């Protein structure tokens, strides 16, 4: 008796799972969709290039140029500043020039600028991109959500200059490691690099080294935002767990990288000396340069790491151990700014309006006094010194109808071709039309030609009951036929349409 019970239970559970399977929140799917969305602006470049009036874009691979631009911005990104737009364009131009050797320098610059502007999305208010995707929430309901992202952002520096930074999304698109864990991907990249060098595949090794460098930049960026937030408000950063974890992982990362890079440098030196192929020699030299750049960045990151905890303690002393509040007052940040920014736009309006009215002082209505009124009335009206050119009287041309056939023609043709339950030949109809009007046979001929292969499905969509159908008789129309219409003679008839897609 025991077995059937267990069996039924298991079966029911199984069925339950199956039913839910289609509607279970799938994080992986959403991650992949978002990753896909980030590549859309790059793909879009190539589809939009044909709309550019100033460019024959067929020789340019815009997505490649776009990736190159993101590369340039990312590499120029430092702890404190970013990339200057003009420099990025200047560095991208040689890459563009290779693709369009016969084009002018001006065009290369313009293409580079167009790609850069497109990646910032200049011309929109938000200067970003959007993608709508669907998600099944915890209750099993399908919700459509909007994913806002940017690839390159413009920020202002201390002296008011504007520089570019690549967003995390852009760096993810660039390295192709979409939504993966930083550390594990890092380890994988290292192993791969070591492996590749041993097998002499230096081009791939260079790629892997570059990927490792981007990861370092990402970690540095995370650290930079954490430290900046700490400087503003110690409480805004979780120094209990999150920040120490970030510091530890960054430290581990640097330690690993120093070991790995040391080994790589030794290996490459060997590879460079042993290589006979000049291309390999050059690749090895490139790799040395990249690894050296990596080491420089690691030293920079290490310096920041060493200062991070001291900075936290100093800021904590400065911010938290200040005088306690002596009197009860409002906490503008915690009680107002943060809760209001978390509200939906529609709800936030009323509180913000109330705040604005109460805090911005008084409107001063303009008051007309007798003095000012008299002054105003006696003021000599200022004549505009230059009235501009005299407006020319427009020359109006009577409207000329460009239609070959008048409404009357159409009505006559419609009457002639109302062939329900009758079948007539085209030659007959043409002769009859010629008696009515000399232009009519041409229209009838055209309509008949149209009826040869009528669009039945679109006629059904428009709800028509009948359609004119033409079939060749095998004979030709008489040479000196009415209205100059010649060709094969047709049999014409109106057939009833039956829509069998809707149940009757």
């Amino acid at each position, binding site marked *: 008796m025991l077995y059937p019970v267990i069996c039924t239970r298991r079966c029911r559970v199984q069925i339950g799972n199956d039913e839910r399977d289609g509607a279970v929140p799938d994080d992986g799917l959403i991650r992949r969709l978002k990753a896909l969305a980030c590549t859309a602006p790059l793909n879009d470049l190539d589809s939009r290039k044909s709309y550019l009036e100033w460019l024959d874009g067929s020789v340019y691979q815009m997505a490649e140029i776009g990736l190159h631009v993101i590369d340039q911005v990312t590499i120029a990104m430092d702890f404190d500043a970013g990339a200057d737009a003009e420099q990025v364009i200047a560095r991208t131009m040689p890459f563009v020039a290779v693709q369009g050797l016969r084009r002018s320098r001006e065009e290369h610059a313009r293409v580079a600028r167009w790609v850069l502007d497109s990646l910032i999305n200049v011309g929109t*208010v*938000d*200067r*970003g991109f959007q993608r*709508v*995707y669907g998600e099944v929430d915890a209750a099993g309901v399908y919700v*459509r*959500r*909007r*994913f*806002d992202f940017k690839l390159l*952002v413009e920020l*202002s520096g201390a002296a008011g200059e*504007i520089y570019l930074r690549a967003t995390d999304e852009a760096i993810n698109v660039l390295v192709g490691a979409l939504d993966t864990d930083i550390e594990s991907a890092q380890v994988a990249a290292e192993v791969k690099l070591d492996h590749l060098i041993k097998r002499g595949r230096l081009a791939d090794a260079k790629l892997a080294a570059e990927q490792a460098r981007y990861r370092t930049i990402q970690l540095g960026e995370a650290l930079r935002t954490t430290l900046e*937030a700490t400087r*503003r*408000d110690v*409480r*805004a950063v979780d120094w209990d767990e999150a920040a120490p974890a970030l510091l530890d992982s960054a430290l581990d990362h640097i330690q690993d990288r120093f070991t790995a890079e040391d080994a790589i440098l030794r290996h490459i030196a060997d590879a460079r000396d042993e290589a006979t192929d000049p291309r390999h020699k050059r690749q090895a030299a490139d790799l040395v340069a990249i690894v050296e750049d990596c080491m420089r960045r690691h030293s920079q990151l290490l310096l920041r790491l060493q200062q991070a905890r001291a900075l936290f303690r100093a800021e904590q002393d400065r911010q938290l151990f200040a*005088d*306690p*509040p*002596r*009197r*009860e*007052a*409002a*906490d*503008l*940040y*915690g*009680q*107002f*700014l*943060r*809760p209001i*920014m*978390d*509200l*939906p*736009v*529609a*709800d936030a*309006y*009323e*509180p*913000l*309006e*109330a*705040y*604005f*009215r*109460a*805090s*911005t*002082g*008084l*409107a*001063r*209505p303009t008051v007309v006094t007798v003095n000012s009124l008299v002054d105003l009335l006696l003021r000599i009206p200022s004549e505009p010194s230059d009235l501009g050119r005299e407006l020319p009287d427009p020359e109006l041309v009577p409207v000329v109808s460009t239609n070959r056939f008048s409404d009357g023609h159409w009505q006559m043709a419609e009457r002639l071709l109302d062939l329900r339950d009758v079948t007539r030949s085209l030659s007959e109809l043409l002769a009859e039309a010629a008696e009515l009007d000399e232009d009519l046979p041409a229209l009838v001929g055209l309509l008949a030609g149209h009826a040869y292969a009528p669009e039945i499905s679109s006629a059904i969509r428009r709800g028509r009951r009948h359609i004119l159908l033409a079939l060749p008789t095998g004979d030709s129309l008489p040479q000196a036929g009415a209205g100059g219409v010649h060709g094969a003679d047709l049999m014409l008839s109106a057939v009833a349409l039956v829509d069998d897609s809707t149940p009757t």
Partner: protein
Amino acid sequence: MNDDVTAAASLIVFGLRPKALPGRDPAYRSLVIRHRDDDAFAALVAAVARGLGLRVLDVDAESGIVLSPLQGSVFELRLDQYARQTRTNERRDVEKVLHGVIFLAAAALAFPRPADLANDQYTGRVSVAEVDTMAREVTRVLRENANAIDPEADTPRLEQVWRAYARRPESQSTKDGRAAPDSTRGMVGRALRYLADQGLLVPVPGDLDGLYRTTRRFLIQVRELAVERTMDELLRIGVVPVLDPGGSLRAADAAEGEG
């Protein structure tokens, strides 16, 4: 009696001039002193002000008389009118809300701790870059709290304010090299200039562009009126829990910030 009314009205007129200060005008100073010493005169000033649609928030030897408009008064400023001048394709409600948030962020930066707002002598400093950074910092914290859940696509009015702020670029390069008015820094710059025109902020001369210090008048307006009105609106839509009078705002906030 008539002389008293004239004097009361004159004091109110000084309050209507944003840049007038008792320290600069002996007539203003004597009226402020009379207000302090003569209770009947103080009551008369309040009565005249009420008739004009104004409320006397404070009269002080340093900042003079601080007035605020009553509901529906001709002196009332509206966010609608302030935001009207902007020309963008963005939805109007988003535009207005962003302007409102910027004013609130400026005050939150000027008086970062409750103690600062409570201290009459406190002078805060704000700059364009810092106000923008402050608001962006809030978006960062709220983004973390949101656990990377994106907004629903079909209901744009339910989008949270911080998302709208985060979407707006910080700065934009324009062809003629001027600050783009649609960027958040452009909007913050306009808000601070506006407050300075109203006599609530004073530009600090020096190298740093867009640096201002607060005036006592600003502090009084925020503390005595704005906080209360905004809190009323928030309570009406049921957002802010009623705080225990004995409880410290800072402690609650700190616990929340760490969580």
